[in-house]
């Protein structure tokens, strides 16, 4: 064997040479059957374990993971679609609500306007009535005033004539006053 026969040497290259000189353990053919036997056994053991247990297991794990990932992605896509749908529904509802609100507002506005118009019309007629009444009242007052003025003028004229010492005929005085007033008018 190489180990037992190697002598101590001073330099490394020499040492390597010496080792080669006594033979590399790799070329010790006596150990070949032993190594080959155990190697074949080891390789067969690994091959058996790999094909029976390890590789199918890892393959199934990888396949399962791929399946899970694909499923998760599909689920995510579905949820995303649902979210989009929900958003659309929400937007639609919002638009509808807005339209409804506008409609209600317009209706209310129209109603108010109508009521307002009616109230204005009512107020207008009332005002017109009141003003007509007032005008009539004013006319009456004026007529009354004119009549009073005439009476006062007649009385006054009669008194003046009487004061001048003349016989008074009420009818003449009245006629004269009326003529005078009409002439003035």
């Amino acid at each position, binding site marked *: 064997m190489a*180990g037992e026969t190697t002598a101590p*040497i001073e330099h490394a290259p020499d040492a390597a040479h010496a080792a080669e000189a006594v033979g590399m353990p*790799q070329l010790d053919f006596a150990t070949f059957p032993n190594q080959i036997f155990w190697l074949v056994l080891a390789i067969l053991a690994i091959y058996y374990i790999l094909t029976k247990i390890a590789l199918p297991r890892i*393959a199934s794990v990888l396949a*399962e993971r791929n399946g899970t990932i694909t499923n998760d992605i599909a689920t995510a896509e579905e949820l995303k679609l649902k979210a989009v749908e929900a958003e659309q529904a929400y937007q639609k509802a919002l638009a509808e609500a807005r339209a409804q609100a506008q409609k209600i507002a317009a209706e209310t506005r129209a109603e108010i306007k109508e009521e307002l118009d009616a109230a204005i019309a009512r107020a207008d007629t009332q005002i017109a009535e009141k003003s007509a009444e007032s005008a009539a009242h004013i006319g009456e007052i004026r007529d009354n005033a004119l009549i009073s003025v005439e009476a006062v003028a007649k009385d006054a004229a009669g008194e003046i004539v009487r004061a001048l010492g003349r016989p008074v005929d009420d009818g003449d005085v009245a006629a004269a006053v009326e003529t005078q007033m009409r002439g003035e008018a």
Partner: protein
Amino acid sequence: MADEAQGGGIHIDPMHQFVVKPLFGQPGDHVGMLTVTNATLWMAIAVLCVVLLLVVGTRGRAIIPSRLQSIAELAYGFVYKMVEDVAGKDALQFFPYIMTLFMFIVFANMLGLVPMSFTTTSHVAVTAVLALAVFLTVTIVGFVKNGTKFLGLFWVNSAPLPLRPVLAIIELISYFVRPVSHSIRLAGNLMAGHAVIKVFAGFAAIAAVAPFSILAITAMYGLELLVAFVQAYVFTILTCVYLKDALHPGH
């Protein structure tokens, strides 16, 4: 191994770490075929590590994987994709076989970097068996799948006719050299790296160069970690390339 009595000099024996010896009994005992040796031990540890990673690590079958399960899935995906990309979809039936090779080599390489361990894949006997198994598989698959058309691999149709016989000889030689290069590459890389580390370790006995030596060991160790993975990767991808030749001959 050590002749300390002679003293003074440094004792460097970089090849001693590769000696196959019986685990029980005397170091010099005869190594029979069924003897439990250090090679047996470290191969068993490699098998154990594969089981630990790919079986125990995945026992949760979790959708969200644990760390160990992540690594197992990563290894699975790494090799699966390699087989699919390099050798094609119809090579996936050989995926368990290639996965076995990759897992064994990568664990044997990595375990070889544990101090005081034994690197099973640094032995030509081991790598040659692995490479020969690949060579035989590829050759048999080539003939079973393609019949005599598999020989078209050696007949380069794109070359000028007079050149073809010459090329055929070259192709034939290169085909048969494949298992040699395939196995020597792996064993040689590991053996060289481990021997260099051992040489540097020997120099660490001299106080003057010890710091440099230790630094060099550290650097080499980092490099060896890379080599351990890359060589497993190279072995596997070459297997895929050869398999592709067998399944789809012709250039």
